[in-house]
Each structure stands twice: as C-alpha cells, then as structure tokens.
C-alpha cells in the first residue's frame, strides 16, 4: 500500500498528522463486518455430507433457527434466548463505530488546528484501473465537506449501533445484523471519502447493496424480501444515470477525479448541452439514491427493515448521498443553471408531494418515511439553487432529528411489540391507531420526540428552523439574483420557477408541521387504544436505547446553532458557511451570478417570521382539527374515502408503475422475446436443419442429407452381388465400352 499525497505545492499540511490514518476510518467498520460476519456464519453453518447425492435425511440437521415453535414455517424474527455470540458482537459492532468516531474527531480537530485549509488532503493507495488515458487510483480525499459527512456518519452511526444493541437483542440474526450494519458504514465512508467518481460509485452501490440486505433482513416474509429487491432495482435506475454521467465526463474532460474534473470543467461551455446533460444524469442518480420523484417509491417500502436501519440508512446517511454528490459536483452544477432549475423544481415538488401523502399514513414509520422524502426534497432545493451550504446544513440537522424520530418510534414499536408478545396478540405494532397516550408510559421518549418534531417543523431555536429557513431564504433571494433566475426552464423564466418553489416550500413546511404534530398527537396524546391487557406491559425502553435518544435530542436542539444567519447575531454566525467555503464557495458565487445575493435585515426578518408563522400555524391546525379520541384501533378502523383514500394509497403510484412498466416488461419478455422469437422463430429455423426423424415433426435438412446418402449407397451396393455371372457381364460391357471409346476417338 503506497501512501502518496497529492503534491500541489509541496506536502499537504495535514500530512504527518493523525489525518494520515485516514485509511483506518473505513477499515474499522470493515473489520467489524468481517468479524461479525464470521461469527454469524460459524454459528449457523453445519458442514454437509461428503456425498450430497446420496440419500439425505439420514445425517442432516434440522433447520437452524430458534428452538421454540415457529418451526420451518415461522419467521426468523423471534427467538427465546439470545444469540450465542451476542455479547461479543455487542462489543465489536458498536465498538468499531465508536473507535471510528473517535478517529474522525481527532482528524477534525487536526483540521481545525490548521486554520485555513484550501486544498483537499488526498491519499493515493494503489493504482486501481489504469487503461490507456483512463487513470483511476484507489485514493481518498479529505476536505471540509467530507469531514462533515464523516462526523455525521460515524457519530450518528455510533449512536444507532448502540440503540440497536437494545432493539435487536433477542433477534436470532443478531451478528448478521451488525455485520451488515458495519459493512454499510464502511461503504458509506468510502462514498464520502472517495477522491474520484468511480470510488464514490463503489460506496454508492455498496450502500445500496447493504440496504438490500438490511431491508430484507427478516427475509422469510416475502414482503420484506420484495422491498429489498425493489430498493435495489429502483436505485439501479438511478445508477444508470450516474454511470452515463461518468462516461460523459470522461469522454469530454478525460478525467474522473474530483480535483481533475474541477480543474478542467472550465473547458465546457457554461450552460451548454454537455454540462447540463452531465448534471441531469448525475441528478438521475441522486433521484434514485435520495428518493426523489420519480424514483422515491422504494423508500416507504424500505420501512420493512428493522427500525434502526431505517434511522441510519434511510434518514441520516444513505439517502443523503445524493445531496452529497451534488455538493461534491458543485463546480459542474454551478455551470448548468438549467440543470439547477430542474433539481430545484423536482426537489420542491417532491417535498410537497411526499408531505401530502404523509398526512394520511397510519403506520408511524411510513409517516417518517414520507417525511424523509419530503425533507430530502428541501435539501435538493438548497443544493440545486446554488446554496450548497444550506443544503448540507439541512442534511446535518435532518440527520439529528430524523434519526431521533426514527429511533424514538423504534422505542415505541419496541414497547408495543413487547406488549403484544406478552398477550400473544397479532395486532400491528406500528400502526398509530393502535397507540395513543404513550406519554404516560414513555415520558422521556415523548419529550425527546417533541424536540425532534419542533425541529422538523422549523420552530426556533430548534435545529430544523435554522436550516430550513436558510434554504427557503436562499431560494427566495436567488429568485431575483442568480444565474438560475436568468436562465430558462422549458421556456419558463427561472425566477418564476424559484418563486414557485419558494411557495411550494412553504406549503410543504405547513404540511410537515401538520403531519408531524398529527403523529405526535395520535401516538402520545389522547386515550390509549392498545388494549386493556397490553397496557400494563408498555414501558420506557432500556437505557441502551434511550441514551442515544437523549444525545440526539440535545443535537436536535443545538444542531442549528452551527450556522446562525447574520440577521440573528446570537452565537457563531455562519460557522458552517466558513467551514465549507473552500469547497463550495467559488461555485456558490458562480451560481449566484458573481456576487452573493444580499438581503436587508428587514427582508430577512420577514422571511424568518413567515417561516415561524407557518410552522406554528401547522401545529395549531393539527391540534385544533385532529381528534385522537375519535380514533379506533386498526382492526376496527373504518376505511378511508375520497381524497383521503388517494393519499392513504400514495396516489396509487406503485400500482401505476407496476401496470405501466413492470408487467409490460415481464409480459413482453416472456411472450414476445422468449416464446415468440427465441422458441418460435429461431428454434423453428434450427429445427429445419437439425430435427431428427424420430420426433413427430418433419425431418430437417441435415437428417435428410443423411437419408439421401444412404439411398445412393444402397443403389451402389446392388453392384456387389457376389455372383460371377454379373461380374462377367460387367466385364464384357466394360471391354466393349473401352474398345468403343478407342475406336470412336
């Protein structure tokens, strides 16, 4: 392994510090994966017989799983006693994450200590794919942006690992779970640390792979396995776009490393077809990974996985990879205002679309899933409009409060599960109609969830307020002062689009406040609908689970204080702005048209006021209109009708996709391509040649040839009669023939 550093002008100041252990950062969770994976396999694996074709059943073992009932037909969900290696795994799994977080923190402090760091710190390990003029190294790049991501991944990740120790404690697949989770963190770190697009792509697909494995973790249920498969395939549609973008980059710039691309991007024409196409294809990839329209459909289904997985992958990290990618490609996007408008528009539409669906979901995790899709839309509005810092800021705060929301709901589900298990009930533990009044049984969780709800709704001084306000404010200002505003989107002036998105954003903010409050009211307030007998089993989750919640709660409160806008001089103004400036500053300026849009303090105050009013109005609206006491438990709940039903069924988008895309592809493949062409046409032609006589069909050309040959041979064999007289005749005829030939020369 060669450690070579990008020599810009001499060695990088971070060289020789703890940052030279950058490679250890992803390697720690990878080690965790290997260890946990071995523990999982060795405990489940029984060596088979030497001759498997021999009569089996004599020496084979029963199905390896839990000891109680459930048998081969039960699910892989419930066990009576903990996994044999659970203790060891509980040390390794979260342990590597905590170690990684510690290392990340140390590296962060080293970076802080430098003061200004203008060039990224690149470590090249070995040559990966060098073919002709394509030079791809396995190398990592550390700059301010990747540092932010690394801290979020390892920090929030460590908390979620700790939570999982409690949440998954009785699961028979405990080591396998942590193996997958560790592998996920490994890939996610590769994603954010990669120094070129293909290395990023390794992480990109790798997290998709882990998502597949984790969503389908309890794979005995077909629905879970289906969800995992759907996630991977829809992601792949996005990956297709990402690949095309990479191909175009290489074809036009000849480089695929970030430093190289950023340096040579200037060769492309500003706002031209090439750079716009590249950015649009990149965004296609983001739409897949970060669940934007039209590729968001996998995320709600992904809730089939364990709740900590939903927290880590589908809230804090994997889904934010798309936002990271655009922030990383800021140079390209700042050169393509039309692409930026597309991103902003789709982000805004997704935000409001998903929020509307969240209004009518009953499964607590589904509400959060659609909320995530919606908030991701906000992030894309931010990075799409050139406000890269705003987008990343919201990514950060969202990681805190969304993880908290998911883990909190996980605690609630954990309690509900325990309750139903104790009474042997089979009711849905995730449906809010079966909850209610939980604040009495889980007060700590209740408080923390409210902190997160206020954060997501955008109530100051909670985290979400600052980030959401910054995004909306940026869009509003850029609507009159940016290259996007000057550009056109399908003929429509960019400024219209941006103002429209601003309004949509406000609508989505209102809906966010409403559905989140709705969730809180139905879950924690009002009367309890879980059932008489179950009620006595409802209690707060153990401290291994509630502890991380507290930490996240604190972060949800103070997380927004990292980037206080100038209009509110109460604390570190624009800390994140300054931190990310070397990475995105230049592009932000370019996207804004040369100078950053300025706002008078009065305009700023009014924007802030609007945001606060909307948030409070939403909360108030929810409290006023929703009557938890009128709810019935899921089993007895009446069906929705009207537009509510449309919302509850997510606008029937999945059904539409199935009918318009999936079924036709399968049907055409089966009917036309396979049966029609392969068997019908090609094989029929083949049979013309090959078909032998013993089948019912007419013989083909080759056997016919054989038959003809045999016939001719038969005729010839008649000459060999064995009778002397015949031979004599032949002799005479021959002599006459020869004589005649000589005579009649």
């Amino acid at each position, binding site marked *: 392994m060669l450690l070579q550093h990008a020599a810009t002008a001499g060695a990088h100041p971070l060289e020789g510090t703890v940052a030279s252990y950058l490679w250890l950062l992803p390697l720690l969770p990878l080690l965790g994966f290997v260890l946990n994976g071995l523990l999982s396999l060795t405990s489940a694996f029984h060596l088979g017989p030497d001759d498997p074709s021999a009569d089996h059943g004599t020496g084979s073992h029963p199905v390896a799983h839990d000891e109680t009932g459930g048998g081969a037909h039960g699910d892989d969900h419930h066990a009576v006693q903990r996994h044999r290696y659970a203790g060891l795994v509980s040390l390794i799994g979260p342990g590597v994450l905590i170690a990684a977080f510690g290392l990340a923190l140390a590296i962060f402090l080293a970076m802080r200590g430098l003061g200004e760091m203008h060039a990224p710190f690149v470590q090249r390990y070995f040559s990966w794919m060098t073919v002709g003029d394509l030079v791809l190294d396995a190398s990592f790049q550390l700059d301010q942006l990747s540092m932010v991501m690394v801290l979020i991944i390892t920090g929030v990740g460590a908390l979620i690992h700790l939570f999982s120790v409690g949440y998954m404690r009785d699961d028979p697949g405990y080591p396998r779970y942590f193996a997958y989770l560790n592998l996920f963190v490994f890939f996610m770190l590769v994603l954010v640390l990669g120094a070129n697009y293909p290395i990023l792509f390794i992480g990109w697909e790798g997290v998709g792979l882990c998502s597949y494995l984790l969503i389908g973790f309890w794979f005995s249920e077909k629905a879970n396995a289906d969800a995992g498969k759907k996630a991977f395939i829809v992601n792949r549609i996005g990956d297709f776009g990402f690949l095309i973008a990479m191909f175009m980059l290489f074809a036009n710039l000849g480089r695929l490393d970030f430093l190289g691309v950023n340096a040579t991007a200037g060769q492309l024409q500003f706002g031209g077809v090439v750079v716009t196409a590249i950015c649009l294809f990149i965004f296609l990839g983001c739409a897949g990974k970060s669940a934007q329209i039209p590729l968001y459909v996998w995320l709600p289904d992904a809730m089939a996985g364990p709740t900590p997985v939903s927290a880590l992958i589908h809230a804090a990290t994997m889904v934010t990879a798309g936002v990271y990618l655009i922030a990383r490609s800021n140079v390209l996007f700042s050169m393509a205002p039309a692409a930026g408008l597309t991103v902003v528009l789709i982000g805004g539409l997704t935000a409001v679309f998903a929020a509307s669906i969240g209004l009518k979901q009953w499964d607590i995790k589904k509400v959060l899933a659609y909320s995530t899709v919606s908030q991701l839309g906000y992030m894309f509005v931010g990075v799409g409009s050139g406000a890269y810092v705003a987008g990343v800021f919201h990514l950060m705060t969202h990681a805190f409060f969304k993880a908290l929301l998911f883990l909190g709901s996980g605690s609630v589900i954990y309690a509900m599960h325990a309750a139903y298990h104790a009474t042997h009930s089979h009711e849905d533990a995730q449906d809010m109609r079966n909850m209610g009044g939980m604040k009495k049984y889980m007060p700590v969780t209740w408080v923390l969830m409210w902190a997160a709800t206020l954060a997501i709704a955008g109530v100051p001084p909670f985290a979400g307020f600052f980030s959401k306000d910054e995004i909306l404010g940026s869009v509003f200002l850029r609507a009159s002062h940016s290259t996007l505003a000057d550009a056109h989107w399908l003929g429509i002036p960019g400024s219209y689009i941006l103002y429209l998105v601003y309004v949509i954003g406000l609508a989505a903010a209102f809906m966010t406040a409403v559905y989140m409050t709705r969730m809180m009211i139905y879950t924690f307030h009002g009367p309890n609908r879980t059932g008489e007998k179950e009620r006595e089993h409802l209690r707060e989750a153990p401290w291994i689970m509630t502890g991380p919640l507290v930490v996240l709660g604190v972060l949800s409160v103070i997380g927004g204080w990292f980037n206080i806008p100038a209009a509110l001089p109460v604390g570190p103004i624009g800390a994140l702005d300054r931190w990310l400036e070397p990475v995105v500053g230049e592009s932000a300026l370019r996207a804004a048209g040369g100078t950053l849009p300025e706002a008078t303090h009065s305009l700023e105050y009014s924007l802030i006021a609007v945001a606060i009013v909307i948030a409070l109005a939403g909360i108030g609206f929810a409290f006023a209109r929703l009557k938890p006491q009128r709810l019935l438990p899921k089993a007895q709940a009446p069906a929705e009708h009207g537009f509510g039903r449309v919302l509850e069924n997510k606008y029937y988008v999945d059904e539409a996709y199935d009918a318009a895309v999936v079924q036709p592809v399968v049907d055409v493949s089966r009917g036309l391509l396979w049966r029609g062409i392969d068997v019908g046409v090609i094989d029929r032609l083949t049979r013309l040649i090959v078909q032998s006589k013993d089948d019912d069909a007419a013989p083909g050309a080759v056997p016919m040839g054989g038959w003809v040959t045999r016939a001719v041979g038969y005729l010839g*064999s008649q000459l*060999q*009669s*064995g*009778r*002397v*007289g015949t031979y*004599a*005749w032949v002799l*005479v005829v021959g002599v006459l023939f020869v004589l005649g030939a000589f005579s009649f020369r």
Partner: protein
Amino acid sequence: MLAESLFFSAVLFTIGVVGVLTRRNAIIVFMCVELMLNAVNLTFVAFARVYGVAGQVFVFFVMTVAAAEAAVGLAIIIALFRHKQTVDLSNINLLKG
C-alpha cells in the same frame, strides 16, 4: 482362305461368350470357356499360315494355359459342389458385399 478361318473363329468365340454369360451350369460355362480358347487357337493358326510360324508356337502356350486352368477350375467346382450341393451359378453369391 484367311477370311473364312477368321470368320469361323469369330463365330466359335461368340458362341463361347454367349455360353459363359447365359448358362447357369458351371461345367457348361467351363466348356464354353474352352470353346473360346480353342477359337482363339484357330485364329492364331490361321494367321500363322500367313505371317509365320510364331502363331503356331503361341497355340502351344494357349493350350497349356487352358489345360492348367481347366484342372484348377474343375477342382474349384468340385469344392464348391461339396459345399453347396449345386453348381448352379445363379445361387452362388458368397462374395456378395
């Protein structure tokens, strides 16, 4: 003189050929073969009358060969008869292949 002798030989030869081709009894075939050979002898003698004694010398060769061939051939027929109890040529196809 020569022409008449040659004509006579030709007739005898032809009779012999027809006999070989059409007769079924192996002994008769052999007699016809002898007839052919003697016809050839006559031809040689006729020509010797005109062109010198070499023709008559040749007759001796032919008669020797005819005798040897008759002996061997009859021996084959006897062996064949012992095996197949018949000398009918139309039924003997041991060489069929």
